[in-house]
């Protein structure tokens, strides 16, 4: 299944809009609007399971909660649709332009990959 991105709650919904405006072929949604925003504030384990049902890869700044959930899912033999971590120290959460460009760059490199159970950290290049 090719890359389909779902932006976590702490990422501005504008990022999805700007990525799509730059390249309409990118599959990207914001949690603020996905399923009518019904997963805002929901537990992340429910979110990961629901995202996996639609083969969505979660893009998140949450390095505190998500890693533990991924370990638990692996122990239970549960699959997820992939997780892409972003580090606030390398791309600040308010630097929407950098995140948009980073996601476009990511898309160009690896939108054809199978993202099932893939876990990656976005690293801005020099």
């Amino acid at each position, binding site marked *: 299944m090719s890359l389909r991105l779902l932006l976590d709650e702490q990422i501005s919904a504008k990022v999805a809009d700007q990525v799509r405006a730059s390249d309409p072929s990118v599959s990207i949604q914001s949690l603020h609007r996905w399923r009518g925003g019904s997963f805002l504030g929901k537990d992340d384990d429910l979110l990961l399971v629901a995202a996996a049902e639609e083969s969505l890869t979660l893009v998140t700044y949450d390095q505190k909660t998500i890693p533990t959930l991924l370990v638990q899912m692996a122990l239970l033999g549960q699959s997820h649709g992939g997780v892409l971590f972003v580090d606030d120290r390398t791309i600040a959460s308010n*630097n929407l332009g950098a995140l948009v460009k980073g996601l476009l760059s990511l898309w160009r490199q690896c939108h054809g990959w199978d993202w099932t159970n893939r876990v990656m950290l976005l690293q801005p290049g020099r």
Partner: protein
Amino acid sequence: MSQVVTLRLPDSAAEAIRQIARREKRSVNEVGVRIVEEWLRQQRFAHIEFRSFQGERHACFKDRLQVWQVIMVARDYGMDVEKTAEHLSLRPEQVQSALNYYEDYPEEIDPVLRENDLGYEQLKERLPSLQLIEVRIDGAP
């Protein structure tokens, strides 16, 4: 500092607290203190509630994200309420409530923010399958 305060609870409330204590493997005292403390904070800070995440209690917005995540974004906006609210699709008064909470309880939020600053090496220790993907953020193809 703390004080001993004796309360007389209805049987049902006392049993409910004992059940929570058994389930969480905590003392009745710990659970009782937490319930009172959280209730008092919820009265002081509009929009704030407490939920459990992986066995830890965290201050959250009602039906929305955890306070530490709001502060993470707010820091990047120089604690600007309006910009943070727009970013997170929250109302300014909700963000202000989070900032007020943080001002009163930095010792609760700051360690969580530090825990979120793992970086590649520490994240890799927790998730051995983690891979780095280098991307351009200067707009070059």
